[in-house]
């Protein structure tokens, strides 16, 4: 494992290196994925571009028109603890908080987690649920790619050889939105997920019906998977246990776990866990969305049906 090492102190400096080396160089942010991969011989770059000291790549900033901007170097820990993100974007905080263990979270970055692109990444389903966009830069200029389109295979992204991820743009979720990301493993957050589920629900405050639903599965296919068919049956509906069960059933059917021998779980078991945990995540997300609503005589609530 031999490589050259550069530490550009600005984005243009990083761009110059990328333009010259393209796929022969890897970007190093925190290193918790890349260093392991290089030592295992999975990645053998000629050079490593450490972007960790570029100030413009850090920080969580609210945008003027609402929404938020998160620099690629923001660590999982910073996201987990961010007060700005906890009010409104907390599904992302939940995702970040469930990455591995504290030592990893202190170093691992949102950009790194996203660009590493494993299907079980804990922050990507949350980013997708929030409708986040990745802002990329290359010598040709900036472009914006929705997270839903960012991954095109296990560990594969649409990043071009001379392109790097600068930041994430996340629109402000409407009021009365609740989100839940959960990660299921037999050993707490320490392991990669057997299934990860991100559920985001927005309710209409006047009638308590679902206005928007997002259901994203992690670790159930070559990339994180958005289950549109499950989302659509929730729209315009009231909170209902059997509705969640049906949505979970659809999600289980659409999940694409690898049928071969897996170190973590068999495909049938993953599917079953999608069924169990999608339901749970949807209920939780809905509960959170409702938390801001006034559950009085304004509209009917089926008390027995309250999950």
């Amino acid at each position, binding site marked *: *494992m031999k490589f*050259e090492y550069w530490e550009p102190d600005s984005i243009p400096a990083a761009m110059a290196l990328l333009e010259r080396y393209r796929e022969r160089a890897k970007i190093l942010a925190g290193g918790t994925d890349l*260093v392991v991969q290089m*030592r295992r011989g999975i990645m053998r770059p000629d050079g490593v571009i450490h972007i960790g000291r570029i100030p413009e790549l850090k920080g969580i900033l609210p945008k003027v028109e609402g929404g938020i901007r998160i620099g690629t170097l923001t660590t999982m820990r910073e996201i987990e603890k961010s007060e700005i993100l906890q009010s409104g974007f907390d599904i992302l905080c939940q995702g970040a908080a469930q990455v591995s263990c504290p*030592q*990893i979270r202190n*170093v691992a970055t949102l950009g790194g987690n996203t660009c590493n692109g494993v299907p079980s990444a804990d922050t990507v389903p949350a980013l997708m649920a929030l409708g986040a966009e990745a802002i990329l830069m290359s010598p040709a200029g900036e472009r914006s790619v929705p997270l839903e389109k960012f991954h095109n295979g296990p560990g594969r992204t649409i990043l071009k050889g001379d392109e790097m991820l600068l930041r994430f743009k996340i629109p402000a979720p409407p009021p009365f939105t609740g989100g839940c990301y959960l990660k299921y493993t037999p050993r707490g*957050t320490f392991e990669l997920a057997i299934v990860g589920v991100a559920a985001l629900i927005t309710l209409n405050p006047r009638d308590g019906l679902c206005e928007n639903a997002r259901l994203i599965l992690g670790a159930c296919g070559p990339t994180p998977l958005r289950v549109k068919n499950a989302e659509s049956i929730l729209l315009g509906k009231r909170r209902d246990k059997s509705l969640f069960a049906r949505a979970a059933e659809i999600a289980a059917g659409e999940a694409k776990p690898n049928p071969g021998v897996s170190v973590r779980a068999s495909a049938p078991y993953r599917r079953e866990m999608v069924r169990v945990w999608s339901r749970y995540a949807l209920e939780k997300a809905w509960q959170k969305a409702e938390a801001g609503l006034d559950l009085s005589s304004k509209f009917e609530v089926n008390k027995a049906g309250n999950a």
Partner: protein
Amino acid sequence: MNMKQKIELEVNGKTQEVFVEPWKTLLEVLREDLGLTGAKMGCDDGNCGACTVIVDGQAIKSCLMLALQARGKQILTIEGLGSAENLHPLQQAFIDHFAVQCGYCTPGMIMTAKALLDEKPEATEEDIRENLHGNICRCTGYVKIVEAVEAARDRMKKRDI
């Protein structure tokens, strides 16, 4: 071609100059170049936690960080935590509560616990179990480690009064 780069690392309060190849991890440089063998290698991929040191106040797994990344940062290892005459409360508690058996996980475990207690002096047992769960121990079953960290927490709280 000699690819070593000269960097300065601040380790345990002292600035040290080292010549390192880019692919060397912080763990390797601490152990091989600086002789600080308290941090250990127990696995291949950042899972056991035996390599944990504190960088800029945060517990990190030094096997996952290239040494060059640590330039300009303040690094604290087990060797800088206390001395035989002046043990850190965590070190004393690990002795008093029999939280040490083979001792291989001990330095990493103590450093992770220190980072936790520094940030959260009121850490509960649940906090301790959750925060240290990236440090694996095969000998103790973790019971006396939790006991020791709680005892250190209580002693450190008293000292602040």
